[in-house]
């Protein structure tokens, strides 16, 4: 009996030890950057690193004083929200049709776009966007975001649509409901969970995307990742402002995902389902 209790206790300690170790591994860079962002340049450069120091908000002040930070914040939010809305309007019907009618070639095409290497498209895109007047506009950025978000959304929602029993739709059709009406009034509410999941993950993707806005945005629509990348300085050893900027860009997305944790975890799990 005693042996059993002992075993259970050591088992528990082992479990928590392993957990803490894993958490430390994953969290360490975050702890580090938060600390760096609160240090003055002298403390930040110290070797071995100082763990106890007087925090300063000077770095954060510098970030906000850099001028374009708040504007980029606004741009990022607008682009993300527009992206999510446009994504649902375009991708929901497409996913529904593919799930219902199993258009194999279409789902393959969509899967493939999700896997294509993007760098090679940058220059053609730049030229097209320029020609269409979409360069440095919110619409242009939203469109560029859609290229990876639509395939992802379709891929993820397929399962949700497949889970909607066909009988419900057939009953609605018999009642004289149109296909479109049935889709909007009956089917969409049933995949609400999927929609929230898509939006949660979509928020993360669109908030974090860097390569597209770097090439396709100019002074008007510059988003946060581009601004943050700019804090890499060419002739200074002061990493404080960069760290503060990194904290500020990461905070909103982490808070947002924390709120929607359930959907986020499910979304990730579904991304690799079946």
């Amino acid at each position, binding site marked *: 009996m005693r042996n059993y209790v002992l075993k259970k206790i050591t088992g528990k300690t082992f479990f928590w030890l392993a957990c803490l170790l894993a958490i430390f591994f994953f969290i360490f860079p975050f702890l580090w950057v938060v600390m760096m962002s609160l240090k003055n*340049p002298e403390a930040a450069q110290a070797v071995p690193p100082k763990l106890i120091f007087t925090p300063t908000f000077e770095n954060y002040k510098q970030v906000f004083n850099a001028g374009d930070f708040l504007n980029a914040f606004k741009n990022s939010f607008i682009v993300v929200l527009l992206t999510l809305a446009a994504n649902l309007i375009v991708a929901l019907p497409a996913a529904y049709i593919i799930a219902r009618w199993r258009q194999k070639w279409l789902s393959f095409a969509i899967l493939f776009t999700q896997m294509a290497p993007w760098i090679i498209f940058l220059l053609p895109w*730049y030229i097209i966007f320029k020609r269409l007047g979409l360069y440095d506009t919110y619409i242009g950025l939203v469109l560029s975001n859609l290229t990876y978000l639509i395939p992802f959304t379709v891929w993820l929602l397929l399962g949700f649509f497949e889970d909607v029993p066909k009988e419900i739709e057939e009953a609605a059709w018999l009642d004289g409901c149109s296909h479109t009406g049935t889709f909007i009034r009956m089917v969409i509410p049933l995949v609400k969970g999927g929609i929230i999941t898509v939006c949660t993950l979509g928020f993360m993707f669109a908030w974090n995307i860097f390569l597209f806005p770097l090439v396709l945005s100019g002074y008007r629509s510059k988003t946060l990742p581009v601004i943050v990348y700019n804090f890499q300085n060419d002739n200074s050893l002061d990493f404080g402002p960069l760290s503060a900027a990194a904290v500020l860009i990461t905070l909103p997305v982490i808070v947002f995902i924390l709120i929607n944790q359930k959907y986020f975890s499910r979304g990730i799990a579904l991304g690799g389902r079946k």
Partner: protein
Amino acid sequence: MKKRVLLRVGFPALVLVLFVFTFFSQAAEFNWRKYEGTTIRVLASKSAFTPMSQAFYREFEQKTGIKVIDEHYGSAPLRRKITMELAAKNKDLDVFGGMMKTNLEYYRAGWLFPLDGFLKNPALTNPNYDYNDIFPKVRSIVDGKTIGITTGMNPQVLMYRKDLFEKYKVKVPTNWKELEEAAKKLTLDTDGDGKIDVYGWVARMNEENSAPFSNFLWSNGAAWLDKKNKPVFNSPQAIEALKFYGHLLKAYGPPGASTLGWQEVASAMAQGKAAMTVEISIFADMILEDPKQSKVTGKMGYTYFPPAKPQFKTMLLPTNCTHISAFSEKKEAAWLFVQFMTDKERTLAFQLKMFPTSRKSAWLDPKFKEMDKYPELSKIQYEGVQKGIVDFELTIPAFDEARPYLSRMIYTAYEGGDVKKAADETVKRVEEIMKKTP
């Protein structure tokens, strides 16, 4: 009678003189508002001077009625953005900043608008602009064409710990032999624990090593290319320079040299862990003399990089330039902008912030002399600018492509490999690259 003659001749003469005078003074009144209402777009590198530049942009807008849209990026993304926009022949890019190294590539591609016509046109160039005030050595001229306006430079100088040199009675080196002696004597174990606390020498050995190495190359009378643009950095003098560069760091530098970039070198100096290096002079004000970042403020000395033989004494001058795009549709307005930003007044303002500018007048200005924080450094920079070398790197359009190979060759010298063989191979490689992009 005499009086009348005087009146008859004198009066018209006076009128004429007055007329001529007013005419010329009107001409001298340069019209800045000719392109009022236009908007130009500027891409520039982000640095400590950005806020100051931006304040000047607003002043320019007030003065000319031309709106300036400016974007600032770090050097790597800036270059990518400019390249992409120019490759797409973007008409909305008017002015951009760059370094002399990248000029050539853009110029050969036909992306830079030559400014000679504008400079000669009194309607477009303010008579006060005084282009000749810019040091002839550093002007951005390729094939006889002015492809940009040089705003400033980053001379490479020997930075050394004055206090240590005095304490250990070491002579500030004036040639290679003395350089090695100093490095040897100043590799110190100050607390006697058997570990080295101060390294005698530190210099870049990562991908960026070709810039500081160039000091060794030129100061031994060697060169990257000969007069016919043939790569010759496998000459005996060049091999000697390679070996010395590698040896110095190997024998008197910190371990793990392949990781040494400008940040590591600057940090080693700032933390007092190294006694000497050769680096760009801007680090003095930006890092080494900034008490927030450095432990060695006030202890630094600056001088020429010591040459192997006195006749090879020189200074390497990386330069920053401003260009007008060949695809811009508002070249005149863009020129007004470039002119405004590089005129005497603006240049002096940057000089007063310790940025080494390209105008003689700024260096000689009494205001600068009065506030100059590092007169010793200023003196050699001012001299160096007049006789230094601007094209000190391997000056080929595809420099970026060749760079990793040069870097590896220099590293071979550090590792103690077969330097001659590495140099021969690299020359061959560079020749191939040059064949592709004439």
